[in-house]
């Protein structure tokens, strides 16, 4: 059962070969057995999960089941979930029980999909290794001495270890794609504005976007059908007609033009990753695709631009954590100002504080033009490069991350070294384009390698078509770590 796709699980539920309650119990048992070693979940509440599963079974018995009713899913602990602890991986929210559901949670509930729990993450989604979580690092299921990536590290690890058939994630600079790559699963960051950010704890609002994480592209397609749609509660939610993302899955790839950005295959890319991605290109050529070399010349500036814009937005967003309305409050203080300062000093971890300080500085008087405005202008240049590239290709392909998973502790002492992990993923966030990562091989240490697809705005159906056809011809996505039990 742990190797079943979402469509297979849905078919078994529809045929009444299994109930949602039995399915939920299977995954809860697996979480109980494996989570102590992996630490992918911050909160598990078996009673609540089983109650939601029983409700899904009742929905089916009443003849009101949708395509995924009864299939359980794990949610990143960044989504407010009514009645569940929602910590965002931070001491600041260690005691915060959300009083409402995020829009994404509402949609999965409406689809009748029980929650298996809340997954671990880098604090406030700031990190690429899941080591900044107040609740401890997540371990990579392929080798527990290695990181799972981040910030959606718990989501990626729980799917890789088959503790959940699917999970939600969020991606501000690569936080769905990079952990998907490092854990050997498929993950998609949609076009900015397709998925509502309502109830999703804000990091950098002009970049944050939620998306699905699961073993295969086909699974992600089904989840995307649930997640997307207009929400008046998010001012950046796009009013578009609802799409069926499964519509192009089975199309042949003949005539597909794949753009290969030369900057993504340059210095700094690990040789084994380069070889696996190049082999995937050959596989796509066999399926009828042609390749074209493209240039994303300004993409090398994506990291400096991101580390101005994201901290600037974060310093503003995280000003709400003041110890007054929710979350942590310092136990001792002399006055109101001292209460703010101590609460924030004690409630935030080191990386979050670093980014707030960067943001406060670049937005401070006299520095705004040199940093924030300059970064916004280069953001435009980066987006323009993509616009040019999509005149000659249908989808852009490259590595997701410059290397495979690294050891726990290996990069946690050097912020810049850690930031470079998101070299290839950040450009899509800056432009607001959809990006996805899918497994394309393993390195000599047995760690997964991910390839990235970046598509034009609203081309998710095309990207999922490419990914699905690739996954029909290969079996990297079907592999799961062994010997975990």
């Amino acid at each position, binding site marked *: 059962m742990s190797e079943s796709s979402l469509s297979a699980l849905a078919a078994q539920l529809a045929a009444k070969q299994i109930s949602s309650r039995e399915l939920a119990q299977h995954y809860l048992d697996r979480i109980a057995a494996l989570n102590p070693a992996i630490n992918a979940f911050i909160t598990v509440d078996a009673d609540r999960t089983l109650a939601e599963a029983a409700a899904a079974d009742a929905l089916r018995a009443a003849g009101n089941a949708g395509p995924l009713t009864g299939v359980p899913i794990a949610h990143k602990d960044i989504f407010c979930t009514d009645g569940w602890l929602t910590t965002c991986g931070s001491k600041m929210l260690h005691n915060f029980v959300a009083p*409402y559901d995020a829009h994404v949670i509402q949609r999965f509930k409406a689809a009748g999909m029980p929650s298996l729990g809340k997954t671990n993450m880098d604090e406030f989604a700031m990190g690429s290794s899941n080591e900044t979580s107040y609740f401890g690092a997540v371990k990579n299921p392929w080798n527990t001495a290695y990181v799972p990536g981040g910030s959606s590290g718990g989501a990626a690890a729980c799917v890789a270890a088959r503790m959940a058939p699917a999970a939600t994630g969020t991606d501000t600079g690569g936080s769905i794609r990079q952990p998907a790559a490092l854990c050997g699963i498929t993950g998609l960051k949609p076009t900015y504005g397709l998925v509502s950010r309502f109830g999703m704890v804000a990091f950098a609002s002009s970049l944050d976007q939620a998306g699905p994480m699961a073993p295969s592209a086909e699974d992600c397609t089904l989840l995307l059908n649930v997640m997307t749609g207009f929400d008046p509660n998010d001012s950046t939610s*796009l009013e578009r007609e609802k799409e069926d993302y499964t519509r192009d899955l089975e199309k042949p790839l003949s005539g597909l033009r794949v753009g290969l950005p030369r900057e993504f295959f340059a210095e700094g890319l690990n040789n084994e990753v380069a070889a696996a991605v190049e082999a995937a290109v050959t596989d796509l050529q066999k399926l009828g695709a042609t390749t074209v070399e493209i240039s994303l010349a300004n993409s090398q500036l994506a990291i400096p631009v991101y*580390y*101005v814009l994201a901290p600037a937005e974060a310093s503003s967003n995280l*000003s709400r954590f003041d110890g*007054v309305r929710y979350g942590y409050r310092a136990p001792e203080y002399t006055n109101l100002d001292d209460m*703010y300062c101590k609460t924030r*000093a004690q409630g935030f971890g080191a990386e979050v504080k670093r980014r707030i300080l960067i943001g406060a*500085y670049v937005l401070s008087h006299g520095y705004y033009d040199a940093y924030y405005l300059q970064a916004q202008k*280069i953001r435009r240049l980066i987006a323009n490069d993509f616009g040019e590239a999509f005149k000659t290709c249908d989808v852009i392909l490259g590595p997701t991350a410059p290397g495979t998973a690294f050891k726990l502790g290996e990069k946690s002492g050097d912020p810049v070294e850690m930031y470079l992990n998101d070299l290839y993923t950040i450009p899509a966030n800056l432009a607001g384009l959809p990006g996805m990562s899918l497994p394309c091989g393993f390195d000599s240490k047995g760690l997964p390698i991910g390839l990235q697809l970046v598509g034009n705005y609203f081309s998710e159906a095309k990207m999922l078509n490419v990914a699905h056809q690739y996954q029909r011809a290969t079996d990297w996505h079907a592999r799961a770590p062994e010997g975990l039990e």
Partner: protein
Amino acid sequence: MSLSQDDVKRIARLARIEIDDAQAQATQGQLNTIFDLIATMQAVNTDNVSPMAHAQEVYQRLRDDVVTETDRHAAFQAVAPAVENGLYLVPKVIE
């Protein structure tokens, strides 16, 4: 450019984050490494480039002036550190 320890303390003050001398010193080195990375941006000519604040050209939507929310203050205040009679409690600010 390079941040001094006083700069770090000033920013921390702006951000309302308490920081002592030892922390300011450690943070100073890390922030300067990050600002060295950010400085590579300054060499780019961006004359006549319009800043990009958002991926999509979206505008604030207007809606009819009708009540859409119900009163849930009890639920929202249940998660606050200190509340009394529907009010958030903070240290006295006016003598």
